[in-house]
Each structure stands twice: as structure tokens, then as C-alpha cells.
């Protein structure tokens, strides 16, 4: 062993021990001949490449090692068997060709047969144990395959560990150039500009996601063409002449037709030639764009006309110079940030004038950082579930161990060695664990599909998630680990059977039982405690979900259809846009069954998509009191906006047609802005200043949750769209009793009639938009509820089974007690008290654990604190209630013990 390495934890020694364990897969021959060489090589390899590596690398290394050793070990054993078969033949029928080690193999085989027979004799026990483990291992494997695919699998790019994501979401083109010129710790830096463009020339005009990328983008990510070519140096002209299709786009738009390459299409009216199609396996770097671009265009970052420091449009990735560390890169970027804040303040300073920092994080972190915490929390939860299943099986085995004590004692008396008896018990546990693991792995394949179906679409990298070899290796490891975990206690018991006591006829020793009882009670307490942790987590998430549902959104999402129209990157004059909007609305209103319809730059829950201008924000001031608010969001709307949404008017009036010509501008403000600017006084009729504009407040409405319910409290005001037709997009909402399948196409044809160049997109209902915001909390709640309820059922079953068993064991004792005058009620109370004590202690331990772990939950909670007392009290009540229910039946059974039967046998 490598004791020569210092340090508190001799990790290589641990690793070597583990490796030696895996080595048992190989034939005894190989092991005896090469063991030292193998271990020396392993030591070199581990110390040089794995010991100081990160957790991810370690996990992958061990999964790979476990898998390849199992595979090669089997081959080796098969070879050895073939070789020994030849040897035996050579030495003839009378020769002793048998290897001396074979005796051990025979022992193991006979133990194996014995163990299987023992289990088959007790099918209920075996099936219960296997079932519980399958549940635990299946759930754990499902979640692990998610974690493996999303968090642990390396990104599919060359030198991916050197790829970094730079900057606060988006930066300007001049910034990218300045960074490239100065950041010597990066040998490559590329930018991506994701946008929506209108494509024509392939049927109906439609909005397609496009990505404009700088020169080295494709080489950096190792992209290859599937057909044609990718971008070359000559393609980077001021107005792009060429484009590369994504594989998905090629399939969707062109049906995979090769003649797509060479065709010309129009993007926002610019003709571009398709020169190639990306390879199918190319994975869009999700940190750089949330969408799936269908057309990729060259962006010449050096073009003089693009040097606009105020347009924060690019996301940037860079590759570290070989040998440079992330810390060095961070320091260098901090220096660059300082300098740029002075040289090019626009886009490089924060609102208080300080330099805008340039975060540098690995591309993997940038891609999956947001889901890492929640995913690990879910993995933690499922591990608890597995532990509960394990303790249940351990308890079952211990209970059975009592019954088997005589058998084991007999075998010991007949000369079986202690290690052999312990091995026998452990072997049984391993068989149960492996059977459970195999079933669990099967369940994981199904479970993963179910899981993917309810996963929110915001989870990145779902394409890389499947049950593969590392995942199966993980399931195998977990099975063996759990087998050893729950088998060790009974195995240790098997090692020291008390021959004297156990062999005495009819003996049910009081002391032996008590010792065993205390161990089993400890396991039950652990089980209850783990369940409490899961219940608290589930309770908190459920609370969050209920609160999210109950939040007053300030509008009525039912029976409303919303859709977006894009005017493209070269939008028409403002008056044209306003005219277009009113034409569309007039025709929609002419449809029978349409109650109201409105247009606005922003309808609730529609903002925040990357690359779209969400809103028009600025500072509002009260000219007299001097009260001011930054980041007030102005929303240009048409007259019926409030009625269509069902927003509540608090004071004054809504906007009307006549306000279009009013001077100063007439506006309606929301409650938050009224409170912040007018501080209690009635604002209606007063004049305030927005940027350079004088505006008059004509009404105050209740807050509308424009940006989702978890981000309340935005300052908002509304003015007529005709007076500020600002953005390149507009949304329409229609309140109607017609089903969406009718009104959707109707709206589409109305928009096409009004102007065929402006495609309608993202047609959906208001309710669906709201639902999408709830998808993530809903997912966590479902998962947590499943875990919490499963674990409650497991723990309940554990307590019930264990109490019932204990009562069965003590029937004689109860009988004697009652013969001596104890009342039935007293016996019932005794058993109940026992059950409640387990529940109570488990509850206390579990609550303490839940408080300790509550910080993990913080990021996914809304409206509840991680130590919400109501949740804790509710969990306590449920657990104690469940514990008494679970011990009631055994208690009643105990009280029915017949003193006469007992005394007769005594």
C-alpha cells in the first residue's frame, strides 16, 4: 500500500483498496501472477491523473474502471477456464488437474445455491425485499442518469475544459473586439448574436431563429458540415451573402433535400445563399443561445458600421490558452473591465458609474449552473429514499436473522467457520441487492422516459440524457453497496451466534431479543428521521406551489389567446405599425363571439425572451415633490388592453380613443408606481415626467404580474400604442369563447390579409403562458411529493412490520403478563408507546436534520421560509399519526394474547 504518501486521508490507499476489490473479477491465476505489477501501474496512473482531479473526473474514472474490469475480468476467467480445461484433458481422467484454489470456487458455488434456495423458500420475504430495493435503486438510477447526462457528461467540443463563457448575459461588438485584443489568456474568442428573422422564399413568410457568429465560431466548437461547407473567411462581408442551415432546420424546412444547398432565401428581405448544412451531432452551445438557430450567418465583428457600443447583443465564449487558469483569466478580465469603463463607458459601466464586471465561468457551468443545485438536491432526496429502502430490508433481514439463529447456531456447532456463516448471510443480501438492482435498472429505463415527459423544457442538455453504460455501472455499484450496507449488520450477527442460548429447546432468549430489538429500533428511528427530512422538503415545495398558484396575477388568463407579430429587423414607420395594429383589431372584433381584442408591446408573461426588446424603461420623476423611480417600464397598449386582460381599475379611468391627441400624454399607472411616486396622495390628474416627456396620470390600475408572479413590484405605466409604436414586435390578445383551434387560424389569416410580410408567431393561450411559468415549481413539487409519499409508505411499512414482528416474538411475555393480572388496555398502551417512541425520536432527529439541510431548498422556494413552522408542525402531526396507526394493529394483536395458550406451552 502506498503509505509513503502523507496527508490526513491516504486517498490513494483507499483507491488501491477499491481497485483491489474490483480485481477480484479476474481469475485467481492472473491475480497471483501480476497483482504487484497491476497495483504498481494503477498507483502510477491514479496519482498522476486522478488523485488531484475534480469530483466529476473521479466519478467517471471509477465508473469506467468498474465497467471495464467487470468486462475484462469475465473474459480473463473464461480464458483461464479454457486453459485449465486443456490442462485437465492433457493430464487424463486420473490426473489431478484440479487447481487447489478450485475448492474455494466450489464453496462459493454451494453457498450461492444454498442462498438462492433459502430465498426461494421464503418468497414473500424475498419479493418484498427485492421490490423495495428495486424501487429505491430504480429511482436513484433514474435521477443519476439525469445528473450524469446533464451535469457530468463533458460538452461535445474539442478542449471543452478550456472553453469559458464570458460576460454578463450580452455585450456589444466593440467590446468583443477590445476583449480579443487584450485578453492574452484566451487564444480564441467568439461571439454569437441570436435573433428572430423573417424568412421568405420557402413558402409562407415565417419567423425563424437565426444566429450570427464571428469568424472562429465553428472551428472553436469543432462543427462539421453534413452537406456542403461551413463559413469561410470570404463569407464575412458587411451584409451576409451566405448562410449555413442547421440540421434540424434542413429537416424541418427542406425535408432533408440536398438541393437546399445552393438555394437562395430571404432573411428580413436580404437574399442569402445556403452553402451548407451543419452536422446532425453538432450541439448548439446552450449557454450562448437558448433557442435552436435554424440559419447561421457570418458576422464581421470588425465591420466599422457595427461598432455600436450601446447595443448589447453578443454572447461570448473563449478558449483559454493551454496552461492558463480560470483565475488568471478572471484577473485579466477584471483589469480589462477597469480600463474599458474609462475608455468606452457605454455598456461597460453600471448605473452607479462603477465598471461592469466581466464574469468568467466554464462553458459547462454557464450551461447547467442554474439546474445544478436543484438537481443535486433531487439526487440527495432520492439517496435518502434509497437509504430508507435499505433500512427496511436490513430490518427484514434482522427479523429473519432471529428466526434463523437456530439454523446458524446448528451449522456453527457442526463446524462451519464464522466467516463462512457471515459470508453466507452477506451473499444472500447481495443476491437480493443484485436482483433489486436489475429490476431497478429496468425501471429506470421506463422512469427516465416518464421523467423527461414532465421535465420543464428549461432544463438544458436533455438530449444527452439516457441510460448508458456509466449509468448501469452506477446501478451495479449502488446495488453492491446497498447489499453490503444492509447485509453487514445481519452478517455480523451471523458471525457470533450464541450457541448455548440458541440451541436450548424452545428458547426465545429475552436478552438476545432485546439486543437485537435495540439495533432494529435504531434502524427504524433512522428511517423515520429520513422520511421526516423528505416530508419537510416535500411540504415546503408544496407550500411554494400553492402560494404560486394563489398569487394575484392582476388579470384573468382564461379564454384569452395571445400571439406575437414581428416587423423584422427593418420595421416600418411607427404610424404604419399603428395602422396595421388597428386594421387587425378591427377585423378581429368583427368576428362574432370575440368579446374584446387588444394589442400591446407587452402582454403578461411574454417578456424576457432573449434577443427581443422587452420594454421601454426610464426614470419617472414627480416635478413637485422630487420623488423619482428608476426602471419604470412603459407599455404602449391599445384602448381595450385593460378590458381584454381583465385588469382592475382602482381610481380614475382607463385610456380612451380621445387620449391619442391629448397633450401632455395621458397615461395610466400601476399601483406600485402610484405608491412610490405619490406616496399616499391621489395621483389622478397630476403630471409627472418620464425621461424628457411630461405625462398626465388619468387612472391607476392594480398591478399586473408582467414578468411572472415571483417578480412582483415593478413600476409600470401604460400609454396609447399610437403615441409610441416603438418596438419591432407587437402582441395581440383576443378574449373569446371560441376554442383556440378556431380563433388561432382566424387571427393568422387576418394578419396575413393585413400584411403578408409580417408573420404571426407563438400563438398560445394566456393560461398556457402562465402555466409555463409554473412548470419548474410544478415539476419539483411532483418529484418531491412522489419521494415524500413513497418514503412515508416505506417507513410506515417498516414500523408496522417491525412492530408486528416484535409483538409476535413477545406473545409469550404478554401472555404471562396478562396471566399475572395485566389488563389488555395496558398491554395495548405498552406497544403503542413503543411505536410512538420510535416515531417521536425519529421525528426529533429528522426535524433537526431538515433544519440543517434547509439552506439547500432556499433557491427553489417562494413565499415560504425554509424553516416554515407550519410545515414542520404539519409534518410532525402526520408522522406521529402515521406511527400510531402503524402500531395500532400490532398493539391490538398483543392485547389479544391468550394467557391460557401461553401457560400451556410454558
Amino acid at each position, binding site marked *: 500500500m502506498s503509505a*509513503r504518501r502523507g496527508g490526513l486521508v491516504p486517498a490513494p490507499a483507499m483507491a488501491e483498496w477499491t*481497485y483491489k476489490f*474490483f*480485481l477480484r473479477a*479476474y481469475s485467481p491465476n*492472473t491475480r497471483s*501472477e*501480476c497483482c504487484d*505489477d*497491476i*497495483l*504498481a*501501474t*494503477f498507483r*502510477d*496512473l491514479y496519482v*498522476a491523473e486522478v488523485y488531484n482531479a475534480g469530483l466529476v473526473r473521479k466519478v467517471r474514472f471509477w465508473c*469506467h*474502471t468498474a465497467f*471495464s*474490469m467487470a468486462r*475484462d*475480468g469475465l473474459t*480473463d476467467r473464461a480464458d483461464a477456464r479454457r486453459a485449465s480445461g486443456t490442462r485437465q484433458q492433457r493430464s487424463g481422467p486420473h490426473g489431478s488437474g484440479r487447481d487447489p484454489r478450485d475448492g474455494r470456487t466450489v464453496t462459493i458455488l454451494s453457498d450461492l445455491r444454498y442462498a438462492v434456495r433459502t430465498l426461494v423458500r421464503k418468497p414473500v420475504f424475498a419479493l418484498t425485499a427485492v421490490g423495495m430495493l428495486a424501487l429505491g435503486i430504480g429511482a436513484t438510477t433514474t435521477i443519476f442518469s439525469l445528473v450524469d447526462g446533464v451535469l457530468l457528461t463533458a460538452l461535445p467540443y474539442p478542449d471543452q475544459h478550456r472553453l469559458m463563457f464570458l460576460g454578463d448575459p450580452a455585450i456589444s461588438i466593440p467590446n468583443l473586439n477590445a476583449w480579443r485584443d487584450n485578453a492574452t489568456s484566451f487564444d480564441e474568442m467568439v461571439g454569437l448574436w441570436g435573433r428572430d428573422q423573417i424568412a421568405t422564399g420557402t413558402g409562407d413568410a415565417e419567423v425563424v431563429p437565426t444566429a450570427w457568429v464571428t469568424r472562429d465560431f465553428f472551428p472553436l466548437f469543432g462543427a462539421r458540415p453534413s452537406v456542403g461547407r461551413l463559413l469561410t473567411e470570404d463569407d464575412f462581408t458587411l451584409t451576409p451573402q451566405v448562410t449555413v442551415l442547421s440540421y434540424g432546420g434542413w429537416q424541418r424546412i427542406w425535408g432533408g433535400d440536398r438541393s437546399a444547398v445552393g438555394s437562395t432565401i430571404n432573411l428580413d428581405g436580404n437574399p442569402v445563399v445556403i452553402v451548407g448544412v451543419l452536422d446532425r451531432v453538432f450541439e448548439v452551445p446552450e449557454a450562448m443561445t437558448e433557442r435552436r438557430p435554424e440559419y447561421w450567418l457570418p458576422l464581421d465583428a470588425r465591420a466599422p458600421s457595427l461598432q455600436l457600443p450601446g447595443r448589447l447583443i453578443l454572447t461570448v465564449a473563449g478558449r483559454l490558452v493551454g496552461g492558463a487558469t480560470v483565475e488568471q483569466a478572471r484577473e485579466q478580465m477584471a483589469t480589462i473591465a477597469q480600463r474599458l469603463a474609462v475608455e468606452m463607458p457605454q455598456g461597460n459601466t453600471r448605473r452607479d458609474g462603477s465598471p461592469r464586471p466581466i464574469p468568467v465561468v466554464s462553458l459547462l457551468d454557464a450551461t447547467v449552473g442554474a439546474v445544478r443545485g436543484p438537481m443535486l438536491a433531487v439526487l440527495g432526496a432520492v439517496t435518502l429514499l434509497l437509504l430508507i429502502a435499505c433500512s427496511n430490508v436490513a430490518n427484514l433481514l434482522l427479523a429473519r436473522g432471529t428466526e434463523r439463529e437456530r439454523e446458524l447456531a446448528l451449522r456453527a456447532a457442526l463446524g462451519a467457520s464464522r466467516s463462512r456463516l457471515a459470508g453466507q448471510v452477506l451473499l444472500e443480501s447481495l443476491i437480493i441487492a443484485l436482483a433489486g438492482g436489475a429490476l431497478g435498472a429496468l425501471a429506470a429505463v421506463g422512469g427516465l422516459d416518464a421523467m423527461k415527459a414532465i421535465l420543464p423544457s428549461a432544463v438544458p442538455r436533455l438530449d444527452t440524457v439516457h441510460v448508458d453504460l456509466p449509468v448501469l455501472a452506477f446501478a451495479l455499484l449502488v446495488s453492491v453497496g446497498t447489499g453490503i450496507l444492509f447485509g453487514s449488520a445481519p452478517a455480523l450477527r451471523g458471525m457470533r451466534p450464541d450457541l448455548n442460548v440458541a440451541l436450548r429447546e424452545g428458547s426465545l432468549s429475552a436478552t438476545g431479543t432485546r439486543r437485537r430489538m435495540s439495533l432494529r429500533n435504531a434502524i427504524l428511528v433512522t428511517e423515520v428521521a429520513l422520511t421526516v427530512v423528505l416530508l419537510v422538503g416535500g411540504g415546503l415545495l408544496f407550500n411554494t406551489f400553492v402560494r404560486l398558484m394563489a398569487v394575484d396575477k392582476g388579470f384573468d388568463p382564461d379564454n384569452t389567446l395571445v400571439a406575437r407579430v414581428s416587423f423584422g429587423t427593418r420595421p416600418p414607420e411607427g404610424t404604419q405599425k399603428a395602422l396595421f395594429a388597428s386594421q387587425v383589431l378591427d377585423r378581429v372584433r368583427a368576428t362574432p363571439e370575440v368579446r374584446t381584442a387588444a394589442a400591446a408591446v407587452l402582454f403578461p408573461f411574454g417578456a424576457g425572451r432573449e434577443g427581443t426588446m422587452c420594454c421601454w424603461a426610464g426614470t419617472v420623476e414627480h416635478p413637485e415633490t422630487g420623488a423619482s423611480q428608476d426602471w419604470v417600464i412603459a407599455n404602449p397598449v391599445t384602448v381595450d388592453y385593460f378590458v381584454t386582460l381583465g385588469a382592475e381599475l382602482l381610481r380614475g379611468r382607463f385610456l380612451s380613443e380621445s387620449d391619442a391627441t391629448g397633450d401632455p400624454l395621458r397615461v395610466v399607472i400601476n399601483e406600485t408606481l402610484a405608491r412610490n411616486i405619490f406616496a399616499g396622495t391621489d395621483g389622478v390628474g397630476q403630471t409627472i415626467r418620464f425621461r424628457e416627456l411630461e405625462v398626465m396620470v388619468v387612472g391607476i390600475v392594480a398591478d399586473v404580474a408582467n414578468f411572472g408572479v415571483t417578480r412582483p413590484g415593478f413600476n409600470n405605466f401604460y400609454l396609447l400604442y399610437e403615441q409610441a409604436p416603438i418596438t419591432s414586435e407587437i402582441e395581440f390578445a383576443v378574449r373569446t369563447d371560441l376554442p383556440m383551434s378556431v380563433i388561432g387560424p382566424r387571427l393568422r389569416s387576418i394578419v396575413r390579409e393585413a400584411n403578408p410580410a409580417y408573420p404571426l408567431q407563438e400563438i398560445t393561450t394566456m393560461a398556457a403562458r402562465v402555466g409555463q411559468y409554473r412548470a419548474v415549481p410544478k415539476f419539483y413539487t411532483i418529484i418531491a411529493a412522489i419521494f415524500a409519499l413513497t418514503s412515508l409508505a416505506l417507513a410506515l411499512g417498516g414500523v408496522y412490520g417491525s412492530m408486528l414482528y416484535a409483538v409476535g416474538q413477545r406473545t409469550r411475555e404478554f401472555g404471562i403478563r396478562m396471566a399475572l393480572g395485566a389488563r389488555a388496555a395496558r398491554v395495548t398502551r405498552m406497544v403503542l408507546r413503543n411505536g410512538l417512541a420510535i416515531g417521536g425520536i425519529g421525528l426529533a432527529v429528522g426535524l433537526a436534520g431538515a433544519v440543517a439541510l434547509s439552506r439547500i431548498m432556499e433557491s427553489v422556494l417562494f413565499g415560504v421560509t425554509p424553516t416554515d413552522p407550519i410545515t414542520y408542525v404539519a409534518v410532525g402531526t402526520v408522522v406521529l399519526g402515521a406511527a400510531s396507526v402503524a402500531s395500532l394493529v400490532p398493539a391490538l394483536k398483543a392485547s389479544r394474547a391468550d394467557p391460557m395458550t401461553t401457560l400451556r406451552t410454558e
Partner: protein
Amino acid sequence: MERYVAHPDESAVESFLPLNPNDYLILFSLTDQERHGYGLVKHIGEVSGGTVTLDPANLHRTLKRMVKQGLIIDAQVKATGETGHERRRYYAVTKLGRQVAAAEATRMRQLTRRAEAHRLISRSGA
């Protein structure tokens, strides 16, 4: 099997072909110098561009077999490590091993040329 060591003739070389890729990589790695176990793992990893990672147990199993086949010999045991207490077995390629590796390389070259002739791969090797 010992006859291969005694009479490395052409038919003996031929009988090893086609060579198992791992065997070839081991022989190839030993052509320029003697190496120990981890030295082989590392060199093979580099030569194969990281696509082949040999597990120590499987490596030594293979080495043991190749020694028996007469393709390599365990040349010497050297002391390594800071204190010199660690011992490592070094392997070297035999004459037969070298011939077999060369024959395998020739075989692969012929395959490559055929692939080029059928335009499966371009002549530049891209």
C-alpha cells in the same frame, strides 16, 4: 507457442495477423524504448489521441500473454520513486514482436490504400 521464439520465420509472423489493436499499440509503444506499465498506458493514450485507455489489470494480463507468445520480454526491474523503494517492471519488444508490428503496419497501409482507391477517404488523409 514456444516455437515462435525459437524460429521467428515468416509463417510465424503471419499467424499473428491481423493483430489485436491493443497488441499493436503495445508493440508500437515499445519500438523506441523500454517502458513500464503506466508508461505504456500514458504513451498509448497519447498515440491514440485519447481514444484508448487501458485498464492496468487488462494491460498486465495482455503483457503476460504477449511475453508467453514471445512478442515482448520483461527486460528488467528498476527502482523508481523519490525513495527508490518502488519497483517497476520494464518491457521490451523482441525481434519477433518488431516483425509482427511491422507486418501489421504494412497490412494496415494496404487497407488504407484500398480505402483511398475506393474514395472512402481522401488521399490527404482528411
